[in-house]
């Protein structure tokens, strides 16, 4: 029992502090600043140096030291609470914003359950013989994993709404309202668009979904979510971007309209925490889309004992188990970062929407489209 709990703590530290947060904050820099500077044809961050480490003192390191410097700087900034603000909520709200962004990671599988025995590949599935399967690569293997994600992302509305309310400022209040109205509007299309994928996989367990995506249609085409549910992929990507308020859906914090939206009146580490939680949520979008639509940890044709081309029991190219695990975790990270990169590219490619356009897109385009997608998928699944 105690070892189980220690294992859980280890997994939480690994996932949250070594994966989600570093990628999240690194993306703040590389994606949001360096990538933007490249798109806008300017240099971007290149001044900070890691002079305490010998040998690195003179290298700009594509600006990576900036994110360490930023984090350190935020700690030593003054925490200004405006007059008339609700001090208690002003202090609690950053933690409320960070909470859902972190606990959502609990169900993301980084790899299939670890098999202590031998692996036999049957019908594009790893089957563990003469051994147990141990859940080493996801924090919790919930049956209702996807519903858990929806439930927690529903709760993340409060961070924004109460942050806006607690600041006692007009820009903050409008930002908080806009962001909560936008989040709830897209939550519906998010759940309904992914219902088609649930229908095909017949499960809500994210790891089982990924296992099923190892199937090859006709012996060569991986049955990834994007292949069987292309429309749902785009609706889901759009809805998730609106949910995390990424540009072009960044109405709640559109600086040319309402300054910084609901966190206008937050400074120092509180501001940093709200920003960080948005970035962690953005990384989570990448991880979730990779899990549902891009095959999660699956590498095409790679199964537990090596590469198989077609439905064969023996591997065409055998690999040791640790190499398979490393390849798969690498593939999952790559897919996550790819979706992140895509989100940052979209940010600089598309102009920001008007708020009425955001609402119309959610209710009048995404919702009917996801309903139609679900009906058509259900019909096709029923007659097949």
């Amino acid at each position, binding site marked *: 029992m105690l070892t189980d709990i220690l294992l859980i703590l280890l997994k939480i530290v690994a996932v949250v502090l070594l994966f989600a947060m570093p990628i999240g904050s690194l993306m703040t820099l590389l994606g949001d600043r360096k990538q933007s500077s490249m798109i806008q044809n300017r240099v971007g961050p290149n001044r900070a140096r890691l002079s305490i480490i010998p040998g690195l003192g003179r290298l700009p390191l594509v600006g990576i030291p900036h994110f360490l410097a930023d984090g350190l700087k935020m700690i030593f900034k003054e925490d200004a609470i405006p007059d008339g603000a*609700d001090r208690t*909520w002003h202090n609690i709200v950053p933690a409320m914003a960070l909470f859902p962004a972190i606990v959502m990671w609990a169900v993301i599988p980084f790899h299939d359950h670890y098999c202590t025995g031998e692996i036999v590949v049957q019908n594009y599935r790893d089957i563990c013989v003469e051994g147990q399967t141990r859940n080493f690569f996801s924090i919790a293997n*919930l*049956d*209702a994993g996807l*519903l*858990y994600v*929806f*439930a*927690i*992302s*529903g*709760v993340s*509305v*409060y961070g924004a*709404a*109460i942050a806006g*309310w607690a600041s006692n400022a007009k820009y903050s*209040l409008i930002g908080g*309202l806009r962001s*909560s109205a936008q989040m*709830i509007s897209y*939550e519906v299309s998010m759940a309904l668009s992914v219902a088609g994928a649930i229908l095909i996989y017949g499960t*809500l367990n994210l790891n089982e979904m990924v296992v099923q995506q190892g199937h090859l249609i006709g012996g060569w085409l991986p049955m990834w979510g994007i292949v069987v549910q292309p429309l749902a992929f785009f609706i889901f990507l759009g809805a998730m971007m609106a949910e995390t308020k990424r540009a072009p859906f960044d109405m709640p914090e559109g600086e040319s309209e309402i300054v910084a939206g609901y966190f206008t009146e937050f400074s120092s580490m509180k501001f940093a925490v709200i920003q960080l939680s948005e970035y962690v949520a953005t990384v989570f979008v990448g991880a979730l889309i990779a899990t549902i639509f891009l095959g999660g940890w699956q590498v095409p044709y790679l199964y537990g004992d090596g590469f198989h081309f077609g439905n064969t029991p023996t591997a065409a190219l055998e690999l040791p188990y640790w190499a398979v695990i490393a390849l798969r975790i690498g593939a999952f990270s790559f897919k996550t970062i790819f979706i992140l990169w895509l989100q940052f590219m979209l940010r600089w490619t598309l102009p920001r929407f008007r708020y009425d356009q955001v609402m119309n897109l959610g209710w009048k385009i995404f919702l009917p489209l996801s309903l139609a997608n679900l009906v058509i998928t259900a019909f096709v699944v029923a007659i097949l």
Partner: protein
Amino acid sequence: MAETIFFIVFALGALGFSAAVLIAKNPINSAVMLVCSFFCLAGIYVMLSATFMAVIQILVYAGAIMVLFIFVLMLLNIRDDEIEAPRLSIHQGIAILAGTGIFFTIALSIAAWSGSSSRVAHDTMSDTFGTVEPIGDQLITSYVLPFEMAAILLLVGIVGAVVVAKKRF
């Protein structure tokens, strides 16, 4: 043993947060306390192996209905100093009577039920009865009519909301 401790923690949490909902002066505080109370209830559902119910509790109550409450609170925007000191009116008297009545009805029926032989022991049910799949099976087979009635109920809800809100536009 561990189960008892978890139950006590969640039950006390649910009761404590519910009491805080009533005591809190600021309506936003009340709303957030209610959300915390829902989380405790979800914990109790998980302990009863009703995981689907637990997730739905958070998804629908904490994530949807309480958001509406927060919107309404912001819509009305009552400040602390605008709230009048409570006076015992005839409405509150009726509310207290009705509340006490409902409490005793439920308490007595639970007491009667826990003593009766019709009670199904927990261990005669399978561990997975509260997960999503059995519920989906039941919805499609035995409870098809209620399933479709739910759609009609939701339709009535939408129509009602439009009718009420449209008067004010």
